[in-house]
């Protein structure tokens, strides 16, 4: 397997009046072609920021350091024009809130025409529509939706259309930022099933950003657990769920509710503020296995066990 996307010490800090907020810190993540990586963590841990940092969709006050390699090319060396062309063509992204992701004043058809012409300005609208209809069939949307406006469609239908827009150029990577959070469980299952079948059909890798561990267990080949802007643990899905190493992963998996749950578990405490500099392990105050060293020294990433498991913890 070749690495399709690799982040090397990727950090994102937001300049705010109160000082820099370190939303993502020293993230090393590798996504292989055609695989599905789950990125999990609680709200505010930086998972969406990481997804946007890959596509450089961050606001002006964001400072990015480290590098993102896509097929071996450092994306930060690309010109704005090359980066723009890469978006949607090589790496695409779908979002949490499909209801508001389509221009309310544009017919669905025009969204497809605009997207295709953004990359190939000389394509005739009629040809663009032909191409769109093929993709639309793949996401199982009836072709008469093309003449509708976004408000005429349901959330699930709009997310399918967002996916179809992403698929127009057969990107190698799809960043899916909580694609089903706004949808009900039945639609959630349908959209995930759709993503799975499309992945194979289009030979596309997916980075699935979610806080839903069940989704990841079912869907992802590998999982990265994010905490306070860092990857606490990363590994193949099944071993990681069977035998979590990082105390945070352990706590996270314990807080999953199943039918046998009699008492809800939650990781005690709340995530640390990402404002300003910090020392030691960010999980220290909430950790059940904390040691003195954790308070002052930041743990290094270490390989633990097999299947390229990486854990950022002093226990190993």
């Amino acid at each position, binding site marked *: 397997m070749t690495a399709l996307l690799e982040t090397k010490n990727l950090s994102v800090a937001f300049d705010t009046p109160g000082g820099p907020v370190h939303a993502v810190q020293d993230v090393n993540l590798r996504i292989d072609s055609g695989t599905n990586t789950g990125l999990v963590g609680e709200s505010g841990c930086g998972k969406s920021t990481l997804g946007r940092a890959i596509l450089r*969709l961050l606001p002006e006050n964001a400072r990015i350091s480290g590098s993102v390699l896509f097929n071996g090319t450092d994306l930060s060396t690309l010109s704005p024009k090359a980066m723009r062309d890469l978006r949607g063509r090589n790496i695409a992204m779908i979002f949490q809130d499909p209801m508001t992701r389509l221009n309310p004043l544009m017919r669905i058809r025009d969204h497809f025409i605009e997207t295709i012409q953004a990359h190939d300005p000389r394509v005739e609208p009629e040809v663009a529509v032909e191409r769109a209809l093929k993709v639309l069939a793949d996401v199982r949307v009836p072709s008469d939706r093309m003449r509708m406006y976004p408000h005429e469609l349901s959330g699930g239908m709009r997310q399918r259309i967002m996916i179809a827009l992403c698929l127009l150029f057969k990107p190698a990577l799809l960043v899916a930022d909580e694609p089903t959070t706004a949808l009900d469980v039945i639609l959630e299952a349908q959209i995930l099933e759709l993503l799975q079948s499309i992945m194979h059909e289009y030979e596309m890798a997916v980075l699935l950003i979610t806080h839903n561990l069940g989704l990841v267990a079912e869907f992802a080949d590998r999982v990265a657990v994010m905490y306070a802007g860092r990857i606490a643990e990363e590994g193949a899905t099944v071993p990681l769920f069977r035998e979590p190493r990082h105390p945070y992963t352990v706590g996270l998996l314990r807080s999953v509710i199943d039918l046998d749950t009699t008492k809800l578990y939650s990781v005690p405490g709340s995530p640390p503020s990402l404002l300003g500099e910090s020392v030691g392990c960010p999980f220290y105050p909430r950790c059940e296995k904390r040691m003195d060293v954790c308070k002052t020294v930041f743990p290094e990433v270490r390989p633990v066990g097999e299947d390229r498991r990486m854990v950022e913890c002093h226990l190993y």
Partner: protein
Amino acid sequence: MSRWVARGRTSVVGRLIGSFLSQSRTAAGIVVWIGISIVLGIIIVAIFAPFLAPFDPNTKVGAVEAPPGGPFLMGTDRSGQDVFSRILYGARIPLSIVAVATTLSLIIGLPLGLLSGYAGGRLDRALVLVMDSIYAFPGLLLAIAVAAIIGRGILNISFAIAVVYVPTYFRVIRNHVSSVKQEPYVEAAIALGMPSWRVIGRYVLPNVAQSIPVIFSVNAADSVLTEAGLTFLGLGLPPGIPDWGFDISLSWQRFEASWWATFYPGLFILILTTALTFIGEGLNDILNPLLRKSQKAAVEA
């Protein structure tokens, strides 16, 4: 299948006209229609003034300061010229200046507002500073200053007035754009690889366009007054051309002896301004329904 392919893209103008027509029978729509009819009436009068005017506007055709009545519908002024004929001809100057000036300020203000709001950062701060300084100046005073620098003539006055109204477009469009820029569909468009000009043209502009006709007509109403002010002060035109503001300046000192020579040009300035305000206010109600709803809620609360 090509049924919906054949139809062109929905244009911004088409959509705005469509949403006006769909509500043209509401109270706001009727107000707009009244405004449009009056403005159209004045335009027709201006165009056909040579056929409609009973006398030559620049010749002495009767007794000096003859009261309204007889051959002189609105009397004559202190030079013995027919007030009615001068008013018909006098519509030409305000109409053309207002049309040129508001269009010119739209052509300058709209792109600057789009650019400033979308780009943000230093460019935005610099442009906002410049525009706010212009806006802080009293409009007539600024127009006088510009007119004094660039000299007389219809085009020059139009330009002087355009300078005054560029900031109103800029401010409204720029603020609207910087909020629309935050919309999720704009981010989604960028994530799909849209170039900035396409994002601005297809995603941002259509979503701020409903402000444009409103500012246009409100500015037009206001610039009628500015134009009248300039010509009243004698700053705009070469002498001899009939113009409402200029005619007032010729006769106001004789108001007690011949009120009609001042009153009728003033009345027409008022009618044109009111008609344009009707269009602006009515369109505002129709094209910005959210504003209307929030006002309604405020009244009911």
